[in-house]
């Protein structure tokens, strides 16, 4: 979770990612952010996020995103 929060705040240092629950709907994360995020997460966690999991739902909060990353790790 630490690593993920680091990646997120590197992207938007001014957002408190431990609190925000509607990152995509509120327009905090746009197309470009999502592309950057996925690339960095895949590097840092050595996972591949399948395109079908890339939805506003997955990116709505740091917790939701972390849950998805963890579930990917388990599949290996």
């Amino acid at each position, binding site marked *: 979770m630490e690593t993920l929060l680091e990646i997120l705040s590197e992207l938007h240092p001014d957002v408190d990612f431990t609190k925000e629950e509607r990152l995509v709907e509120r327009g905090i994360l746009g197309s*470009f952010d999502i*592309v950057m995020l*996925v690339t960095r997460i895949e590097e840092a966690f050595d996972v591949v996020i399948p*395109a079908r999991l890339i939805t506003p739902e997955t990116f709505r909060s740091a917790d939701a995103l972390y849950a998805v990353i963890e579930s990917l790790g388990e599949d290996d």
Partner: protein
Amino acid sequence: MKTILEDLDLQELLRPDKAAFCDEREQLTFSQIAELTRRIGTALLKAGAEREPVAVLLPRSAKTLAALLGVMRAGCAYVPLDAEMGALRLGSVFSQVRPRFLICNTDTEPAAREAGFTGTALQIEKLERQTPDETLLRTAYAHILDTDPAYIVFTSGSTGAPKGVIGKHSAMLDYAAQLKKVLRVSAADVFGMQAPLYVDACLKELLSTLRCGASLWIVPKLLFSAPVPLVRFLNEHKITTVCWVVPALTLISALHTFEEIVPTTLKTVAFGSEVFPIRQLNLWMQHVPARYINLYGPTECTGMSCWYEVDRVFTQGESIPIGQPFDNTEILLLDENDRLSNEGEICIRGVALCHGYWNDPERTQKAFCQNPLRPEYPERIYRTGDRGKWNARGELEFFGRIDNQIKHMGHRIELGELEAAALKIDGVSAACAVFDAERKRLALAYTGECAKNDLTAALRSSVPDFMLPSRTVQLDRMPLTENGKTDRRRVHAICFGA
């Protein structure tokens, strides 16, 4: 032909029952659209609107597109607005244009009132029920000239106040004709519209649909953060043509989407407003056989002015040209002495030129000026502030800006507008916005006692989302150059590292 409404009326005769403007809630046929424009036009005329700007603040929908055309039916110019623009920008539009009439709904009216709108609010639900008055409409239409304003759209302005660009009917008609040729539009085409309605970008789909009897689907904004559902949407609605900003296309190609789903109905992929990373373009071209077209043009010349159809394989480090001007448009590259050159400021000549900026003769004269190559008679050219060069193949290439304007997420941003918005916040005494083009990050450095969180919260309510800095840095003192100007280079280094 005087206005694009004549295209609409023709489509009403040719294809009355064809669904033309579609969103997830409703699909409007050409005859329903034409009827809506007559109802809205009549209601506006009865309310007393007369050849003046009429603001439209409604959600991004098929009906809103019809409302914009309804304003034209009354012989007025539409001013498209969106709550997404932020209160500060909305307020600036209202104070500059002072529209007497606003088309809205019960949800959007409070935002307009808060932003300082004091005129008559007309609820769209009510306008829709108005009985059309043909005589009234005919008289109003008879007074329109094709040189009259059709719309006013607002773009970022360097001194803080956004500028209202006034588009005219004749330029719209010319644009419709050129788009038809460049995009090779026919009645069989279905557009997937990504653009918001408050920018000129949506004219591509709107005008093409009306001119060619095509149709358009408004793609929901949230799909641009969900690549698989986005492609599914394209396939489901048999979208043949997209004219998207680059991040919308990279969202699909960069995230392994093509391994799961591939667009199957696309024939034309047009992109523009920023550089398409070559790797991403190549991924698209490998997976989706289509025409790939790079578009370039300023709002001040009614949308797009140049096009290039990708006709060769590009490798990393090469730049995709912006190609050649649309027919009936000329590009002049002028050097610092206003002489024609192989490399210089991109200047545009032709009917596509807008009238200028609403109620702003000073900035209008600066950007829309006399063609220095034709001193014998008055002719205006538009100076884009962009740098261009003709390459060895005779194609135009784009080389960035001459000033502090940037392109971010497909939107044009004057760094000065963000700075001005920051300076309006209590406890901010100096502000400097910088942009890192490589990482595509916008940052704002400021001095003053305002806390970073408060600054971010205040900006969120005052500027459009795309203008929010991803990083804010509080400084004790703003770095200055020897001449006492803000040292942008040092601010850039502080915000992004050297």
